[in-house]
C-alpha cells in the first residue's frame, strides 16, 4: 500500500516542488489549536498531490479558522473575506476563472450560523472547491460563545449548558445534494490527508467537516469537542489511503471489505470498512442513517459518507465557455456592430 503521507521520505513532488514551497506565514493561533494541525495536513495533501500553488485560491470568511489560509501555500492568492460569505465569494471567484482550484476554510460559526443559507446554496450548485469547516462548537475569536454545532447539553467554560439542538453539517450537506461529504478529526493525519487528496481531485463541492478542538474555550470537561471527548468518541467508518497512478495495487484487505474509488488524476482512494460496517458511497439515506445512529450513541462518526463524481459542477450547469470568463476580451465580448440596436 502507498504511504504517501510521510513527506520526510520525499524531497520533491511530481511537479518538482518541495514541501517547504507549500507553507505559509507563521500561525498566530493558540498553541495546541486543532486548526494548526489541519493546516499541516492541507500542506501535506497539496504537496503530495502535486498541485501547483499558482492554480489555487484560498478562501475564507471570518473567525479563527478563517485566518488559517494565511498559514499555507503563500504562493496562492488568498481571500480572507467577511463573516459567513465565503460560499458566495468563492462561487463568484470560481465562475470568473474555473481553472482555479479553490480551497475554502470556514468555521462552525461562519458556516453553521451566519453563513448557513449560502452554504446550503453553494452545495446545491455544486461549486467545485474543497470546503473545510474547522468545527469546534464554539466561537473562538469572540471568546467562547456556543456555535450552532455545539451539542445539546454540552457546556461552556463558565458552566452554561447548551439547550439547543446542534446542526450536523454532514447531514445537512447530504440533504443539500453535496457530491462529496466527509468528516474527520484534526489529529488524524492518516484519515484526513487521503480525504483531502480525494477532495482536491473532486470536480464538485467536496465538503469535509473537521472536528478541530479549541484549546482555549472548548477543551474542558463538559465540552463534547474537547481533545479528550473527541478521542473517546471517534468512530471511523473506513480506513483509507491513496494509491498513485503509477503504483501497483498492493492493498491488503479481505475480499468484499474494500472499495476503490478512481480519482480524476488517475490515483485511487481505497476505503476499507471497519467494524464490519457496510457502507455504500452513493446512498444518501444510508449515510444519513449511520450519522444519526452514531450521533444518538454520542459517537462522532468519521470517514467518507457520500460521493457522487457524476453530478454536474456549476460551470457545466451554467454552460460557460472553456476560456475563463476573466480572460475574455473585446474579441469575445463585443457584439457585432451590425445589429440594428446600433447606429
Amino acid at each position, binding site marked *: 500500500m502507498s504511504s504517501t503521507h510521510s513527506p520526510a521520505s520525499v524531497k520533491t513532488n511530481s511537479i518538482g516542488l518541495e514541501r517547504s514551497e507549500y507553507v505559509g506565514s507563521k500561525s498566530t493561533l493558540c498553541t495546541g489549536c486543532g486548526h494548526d494541525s489541519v493546516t499541516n495536513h492541507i500542506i501535506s495533501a497539496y504537496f503530495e498531490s502535486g498541485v501547483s500553488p499558482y492554480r489555487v485560491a484560498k478562501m475564507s470568511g471570518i473567525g479563527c479558522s478563517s485566518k488559517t489560509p494565511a498559514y499555507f501555500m503563500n504562493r*496562492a*492568492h488568498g481571500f480572507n473575506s*467577511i463573516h459567513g460569505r465565503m460560499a458566495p465569494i468563492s462561487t463568484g471567484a470560481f465562475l*470568473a*476563472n474555473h481553472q482555479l482550484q479553490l480551497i475554502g476554510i470556514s468555521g462552525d460559526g461562519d458556516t453553521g450560523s451566519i453563513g448557513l443559507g449560502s452554504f446550503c446554496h453553494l452545495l446545491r450548485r455544486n461549486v467545485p472547491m474543497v470546503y473545510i469547516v474547522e468545527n469546534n462548537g464554539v466561537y473562538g475569536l469572540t471568546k467562547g460563545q456556543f456555535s450552532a454545532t455545539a451539542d445539546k447539553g454540552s457546556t461552556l467554560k463558565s458552566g452554561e449548558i447548551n439547550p439547543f439542538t446542534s446542526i450536523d453539517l454532514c447531514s445537512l450537506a447530504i440533504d443539500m445534494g453535496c457530491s462529496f461529504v466527509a468528516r474527520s478529526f484534526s489529529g488524524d493525519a492518516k484519515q484526513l490527508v487521503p480525504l483531502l487528496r480525494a477532495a482536491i481531485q473532486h470536480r464538485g463541492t467536496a465538503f469535509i467537516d473537521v472536528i478541530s478542538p479549541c484549546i482555549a474555550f472548548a477543551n474542558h470537561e463538559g465540552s463534547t469537542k474537547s481533545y479528550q471527548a473527541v478521542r473517546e468518541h471517534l468512530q471511523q467508518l473506513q480506513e483509507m489511503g491513496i494509491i498513485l497512478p503509477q503504483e501497483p495495487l498492493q492493498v491488503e484487505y479481505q475480499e468484499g471489505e474494500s472499495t476503490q474509488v478512481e480519482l480524476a488524476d488517475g490515483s485511487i482512494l481505497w476505503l476499507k470498512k471497519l467494524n464490519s460496517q457496510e457502507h455504500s458511497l452513493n446512498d444518501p439515506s444510508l449515510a444519513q442513517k449511520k450519522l444519526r445512529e452514531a450521533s444518538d450513541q454520542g459517537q462522532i462518526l468519521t470517514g467518507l459518507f457520500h460521493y457522487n463524481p457524476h453530478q454536474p459542477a456549476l460551470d457545466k450547469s451554467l*454552460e460557460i465557455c472553456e476560456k475563463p470568463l476573466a480572460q475574455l476580451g473585446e474579441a469575445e465580448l463585443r457584439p457585432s456592430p451590425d445589429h440594428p440596436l446600433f447606429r
Partner: protein
Amino acid sequence: MSAINQFVLHVATVNGSGSQSANQVLLKSLFQMGLKVGGKNLFPSNIAGLPTWFTIRVHPQGYTSRLSHQDILVAMNPATWSKDLKDLKPGGFLLYTSEIKVDPTALRQDIHAHPIAFRDLVEGISPSVKLKKLLVNMVYVGLLSELLEIPEECSRWALEDQFAGKGSVVDTNWKAFQAGALYAREHLVGLRSEQFPYRVQRSPDSPCETSEPKVSGQRLLMDGNSATAIGAVVGGCTFASWYPITPSSSVMESFVHWAGELRPPSQGKTYAVVQAEDEIAAISMVIGAGWAGSRAMTATSGPGLSLMAEAAGLAYYAEIPAVIFNVQRAGPSTGLPTRTLQGDVLAAAYLSHGDTRHILLFPGNLEECYEFAQVAFDLAERCQSLVIVLTDLDLGMNLQVGPRFAYPQKPYDRGKVLDKEDLDRLEGDFARYRDVDGDGICYRTLPLTEHPKAAYFTRGTGHNETSGYSEDPEVFRRNLERLKKKFLTARSHVPAALWQRTEGSGATTAPRTSIGIIAYGSSHEAMTEAMDLLAQEGVACEYLRLRAYPFSSEVEDFLKAHQDPESPLFLVEQNRDAQMLSLLKEAFPQLACKTKPVLQFDGLPLEAAFVAREILSEVNS
C-alpha cells in the same frame, strides 16, 4: 382646431387584465410613426385585480414627463372611476366601459363622455370567456387609433411586434382592434371635430419599412433597464448575480436575453448568471468574481442595497472592482415598492460602515443607461472600486424613445493589472497596496498568475502595503488617506456634469430673471419641459445636470457662477431630505449652502409643472 401630435391619454384598468399589452401596441404604433412618445405605467405590487394606470404622452416638443391632468381617459375600472374622472381636463374625452353603471346626467358636464359596451364588441371574436376579457383592451386601442388617425400599417406593425411569433394571437387581437376601429367609424368619427381634436401625423424620420423589433428608423423604444442590460453586455460583463426585486429584476432578465442575442454562444456562454439566495450572496459573488478578474455586476433596489452594505465596505477596503445597478424605489417592506423615488443617494454614497465613499453614476435617459453601464465597468476596474449606478423605477421600467446606441469605439479599460511578464520586468517588485503612481490607485494581480511574487492575501480593513495583516495605527491611517486620494482621482474619470444654458422655448419676452437649476437622473425628462414653462414666465435658466459622484470640476464651476443672491440656485430631487444637496454641501460647504431644494417625493415620476410652480413661487416671493 385640431391638436397635432399633442395629447395625454390615461388608461385606468386593473392589473392582470391584459391592458398592458394593448397599451404597448398603441404606444409602439405611435413610435413607429416617428413620434417621441412616452409611456408610464403606474402599477401596484400585486399580480391581478388591483388598480393600474397607463399614460401615453405625445407632444410636439418631445415632452414625455408625467402630467397630473389628461386629455383622454379610458376608464375600465369601476373601483377608481370617480377619482380617475377628476383628473380629466375640462373639455376632455372620456371612454368608459358600460359596465360602470352611472347616470350620464350625473357626470361632469365639461367633458365628452361615451360609454362603450366593450364586451359586446368582442362577442364572436373568440369563444373563450377568458380571452374575451383580454380582448376588450384591444378594442379601445382600435377605437382610439381610428380617432387619432394612426396609419393602419403602423398599428399592424406594433401588434405583430407585441405578439411576435404568435400568429393566432396576432390575428385574434387584430380582429378586436378592427372591431374597435369599426365602432369608432360608425359612432364616433362624426363627433370628432367638436369633441376629439387630437390627431397624429408621421414625423419625417418614421419609415414603416423595418420589421426589426423595437427599432424604427434611427430610434429605439425600450425601458431603461433594457438599455442598462445592453450596456452591460456591450461593456463586457461576464458575471452577474442577483436576487429578484422590483423594479430591478428586468435588468437581469434583459441581460440574459441580450447576452444570448448579442453574444450567441458558439462553444459555451461568455457569461455566467447566478440567481442568488439573497442580496448579500449576490454582491458577495460579484466581489469574488471581480477579485478573480471578471467584469461583474448585480442589480437591486433599496432593500437589497441595504443588505449589500457590509460587502460594499469590503469592496471599498479590499479595493475590488464591482458594479451595482440600483433601481431606486420607495421602501422598505410593503407599501410603495412599485413607485419611483431618488431615495438611495446617501445610502449608496456611504454604503457600509467605517469611512466609505462610493462612486455613483446617474444616467438621465435611455442612451445614458446604455453608456453608463459600460462606463461603470471601466471605472470599477480603473479605480478598483465599487461603482453604484443609480437609476429609478421611472427611468428603469417605463418605455421611452431614444436614438440608436453608439457602438463603442474605445477598448475596455481593465485598469492596473500586472501579469507574469510585468512581474518579470519588475523583478517581482510588487506590493498590492503601494501607491506607485501617486494617484491612490495601486496595482493588482489576479489569481492564477504564475509568478512567485504574484500572490497576496486579500483582507478587509487592516492591511499594510503588501496586504499583510496589520493593526498599526499609522498603517491604517495612511491607507485611509490613500483611499481618500483614490476617490478624488475618480473625479477625473467619471462622466462630467453637463452645463446647459437655456433660453427655453416659448419665451415671448426677454427674461426678467435668471436662475440656476441642478438636477440628475430621471428628473431630466421633466426638466426640459420645466425650463420651457419657466421661460414662458420670464425666467431664464442655467441647468447643470449631475451625472456622477464624486463631482467633476464642472460642478464647482457652476456653483461659483451662481452665487449671486439675485439669481437663486435650485436643486431638484425626488426625495424628502434633499439627499444630493447633502453631498454637495459636504463637497462645497461654502458654495452650496444657499442652494434651495425643490423636492417631489410622492412616489410618482417628477412633474414639470410642479418644478416650475415651486421655483416661480420662490422667485416671485
